[in-house]
């Protein structure tokens, strides 16, 4: 499909406000103005609406296709959340309004949303305080590691390293490195952290460990109590990556079991849509040890029930975001939690884990499952057997697209060869799961009989397999100007 730029018809009227009475050069010196106008599309409202409506049909989303993308929790996003987030009482609110002293009184509703969301997240995770500022999961990780650094600096600890298990998300080591730490990777054993391997690298310079639990294999870290003790014995801190929180809502509180800092992904567990790559939100929760270091501003409730923003926290790490986080996203997560309530949240994990185990059990005879035991909300299968016949995880993924399913996460975690990481979520019906299972089994059977066919997949998508090497080599990252 042509780009919007290729469709441009010079001179065609779009949505044009009235012209100013005088053009800009009347008000501004010429040397402050651009010399030629930008080469941007000139199209009618309908032209643009049609272009993007057609483009939308070249996408899989949760609303159109099953989306079992492991560790991404692609559950259904209730429509009521969109309606709430578009209330003008929220969308039209200028973020600087509460800084105008008494005008803080004019944002009480928004401040209450922030305050209440923090309280709910504290209760769900067992942490003592939350900041909603971080703008995505990885941003939450960076904030969390900066909090760990602030804690150690305040205590005068000389800490240089962060431990990250080899099963961790790539953002973990990247976040730790950006915060100034050396990253020490440790090998898993039987799919989970091995306390012996941890002991080998543990010393006084360890600032903390970053963990995901259940981990990216969908396995619960059963040595957790020992790990907590080991890390705390060197005054290290435990970081909980909340990507997989969907498995343990109402089952376990990460604050109770020894984690000192946690980030959540509201766009995963709390059902705010992912938007094709954001906006997300990555609130960070801490226990009492780390609370003094939280970013500012913080929302405080006064005795008379009024809310206000407090900036006077001398030990705070400062500002990780300009204001109060991705407010529009936070609003949706708040409404989602209220809608589900305690029973509803519990049921989320119940059925997410049920669905994952059901799919696992149904395909275990067809694909190798390296750690084939009761999993949490996701599991990892491997196409090693199929790879011997020349059919790789990638080929299976592409064949699934042909059947109308989004592919699972592939080639992650790095510790399992030819892996497919499958997370069905609690919102997909048994019929959808069965269809996926049957289609997957059929693909595995084709891998036996006609592997070449799978190399040709996908065939039913708007486009066939794309040449990624060419993209990287040619670096066509923008449409060249023709005028």
């Amino acid at each position, binding site marked *: 499909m042509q780009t919007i730029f290729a469709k441009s018809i010079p001179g065609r009227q779009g949505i044009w406000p009235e012209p100013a009475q005088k053009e800009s050069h009347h008000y501004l010196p010429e040397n402050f103005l651009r010399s030629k106008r930008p080469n941007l599309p000139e199209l009618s409202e309908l032209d643009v609406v049609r272009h993007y409506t057609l483009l939308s049909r070249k996408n899989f989303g949760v609303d159109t296709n099953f989306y079992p993308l492991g560790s991404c929790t692609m559950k259904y996003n209730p429509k009521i959340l969109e309606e709430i987030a578009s209330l003008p009482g929220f969308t039209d609110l200028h973020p600087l309004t509460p800084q105008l002293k008494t005008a803080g009184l004019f944002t009480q509703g928004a401040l209450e949303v922030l305050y209440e969301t923090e309280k709910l997240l504290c209760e769900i995770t067992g942490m003592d305080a939350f900041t909603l500022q971080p703008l995505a999961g990885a941003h939450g990780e960076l904030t969390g590691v900066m909090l760990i650094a602030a804690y150690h600096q305040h205590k005068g600890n000389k800490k240089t390293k962060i431990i990250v298990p080899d099963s961790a998300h790539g953002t973990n080591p990247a976040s730790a490195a950006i915060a100034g730490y050396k990253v020490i990777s440790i090998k898993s054993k039987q799919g989970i952290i091995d306390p012996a391997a941890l002991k080998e690298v543990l010393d006084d310079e360890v600032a903390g460990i970053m963990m995901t639990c259940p981990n990216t294999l969908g396995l619960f870290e059963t040595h957790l109590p020992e790990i907590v003790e080991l890390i705390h014995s060197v005054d290290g801190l435990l970081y909980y990556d909340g990507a997989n929180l969907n498995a343990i809502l109402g089952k376990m509180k990460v604050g109770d079991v020894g984690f000192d800092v946690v980030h959540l992904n509201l766009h995963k567990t709390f059902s705010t849509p992912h938007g094709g790559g954001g906006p997300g939100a990555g609130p960070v929760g801490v226990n009492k040890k780390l609370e003094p270091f939280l970013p500012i501003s913080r929302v405080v409730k006064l005795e008379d029930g009024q809310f206000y923003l407090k900036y006077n926290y001398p030990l705070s790490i400062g*500002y990780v975001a300009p204001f109060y986080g991705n407010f529009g996203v936070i609003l949706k997560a708040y409404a989602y939690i209220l809608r589900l309530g*305690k029973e509803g949240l519990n049921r989320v994990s119940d059925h997410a884990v049920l669905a994952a185990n059901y799919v696992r059990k149904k395909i275990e005879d067809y694909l190798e499952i390296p750690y084939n035991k009761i999993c949490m909300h996701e599991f990892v299968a491997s196409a090693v057997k199929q790879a011997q016949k020349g059919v790789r995880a990638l080929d299976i993924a592409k064949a699934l697209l042909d059947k109308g399913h989004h592919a699972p996460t592939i080639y992650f975690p790095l510790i399992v060869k030819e892996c497919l990481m499958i997370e069905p979520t609690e919102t997909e019906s048994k019929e959808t799961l069965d269809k996926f299972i049957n289609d997957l089994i059929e693909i595995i059977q084709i891998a036996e009989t006609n592997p070449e066919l799978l190399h040709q997949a996908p065939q039913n998508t708007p486009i066939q397999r794309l040449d990624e090497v060419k993209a990287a080599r040619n670096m066509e990252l923008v449409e060249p100007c023709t005028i």
Partner: protein
Amino acid sequence: MPYIPYTPKQVQDMLEVIGVKSINELFDVIPKELKNSTLNIPSGKSEYEVLTHLKNLAQKNRTDLISFLGAGFYDHYIPAPIKHILQRSEFYTAYTPYQPEASQGTLQAIFEYQTAMARLMEMDFANASLYDGGTAIYEAMMMAVRITKRKKIIISETVNPIYRLMLQCYTKNLHLELVTIPHQNGKTNLEELKKSIDQQTACIIVQNPSFFGELQDYSPLFSLAQKQGALSIISVYALLQSILKTPGEMGADIAVAEGQSLGLPLNFGGPYLGILTTRKKHIRQMPGRVVGKTTDKQGQTGFVLTLQAREQHIRREKATSNICSNQALCAFQALLYIAFLGPEGLKRTAEQSIEKAHYAAQKLTSIPGVKLLNDYAFANEFALTLPVNAFELVNHLTARGFIPGFPLGRYYPGLENCLLLACTEKRTFEEIGILTEMIKAYLTYRR
């Protein structure tokens, strides 16, 4: 059970397949001493109850005020069709486009966004988006540090103070030297900026228009930086870039912006959009996702995420940035705004805003004791000196339905009597007239 599709019978069937008796049994892998099933939060509410509760909260926010508040975040009109396209759930319920054959919609939209941003700024390339204007400056600064292998960062105090606070936070553990060049009565101190650049300088960071609304042509400064091997970073007002001299023309190495002015609601601070554009020679150090054009097996044009060797999921701790989820849908929103308005619509929006700001400046400075803070050229935002404390004026008028602007004393000690005013095309000449009368009345009453 909202949003959960299983019937009790189906749950039983599934448990049987798994070989367990109950759902609880699935959680036996969690050691008993770690379990905690108390959730002290209310039971679920109906859709109507939740909506009513949130509507009540929304009503506690006063969004009916006539506002001249800008300070980096602007109340421009958002054309209706934008919302309708954004509600296409094929876009908003998709994940990051890891499977390009099933994500051409998102990928082509990002490619078009990258193109639009590069053309708006007259730079070579743009990435797929960053979180906001502040983190965009931080990422640009880190690019410069990697490229030059130097540690000194020079920033003008006329860059948005909130962004400067963010930089302070991010650089704390990185052993960088952050040098701030003070403003001169609201003006960017070009001479001091020039003097401070040396062989240790990784980059200089400026903003156009500045936080005070001052316009500058930074070409001479940027060419001086280049001679010293330092990179030039400029943060701009995205919408005004349709008429103002571009970062490309000025010779910037990296141009960033908060993209909120391009069709995104104020939304109490987010989600917003971090725009980052740069030169071809710096592309390998650019952070974040980027989409490239390629072909499929049959030679059909298509789009993929590319240059991934820079990114966290490949390079882990050696990545150019830790960014993963960015602001894809916000970038799409900005693209839609540009597509619906076109170059002429953008120009008219910008020029109306500028015209009204100049009218406001003329009206307000006719009040005895009120004058411009300084004599610089400005676009749609400017600073006034008042004969009274600006906070008090703001409080007085806000209680009467007008937000007259932002009191500069909040971030600039010594400027307690100064007010920063912005006009968008939404403000009317009549409103400006009423504002003038209200300020006049307040000052008379104060005397």
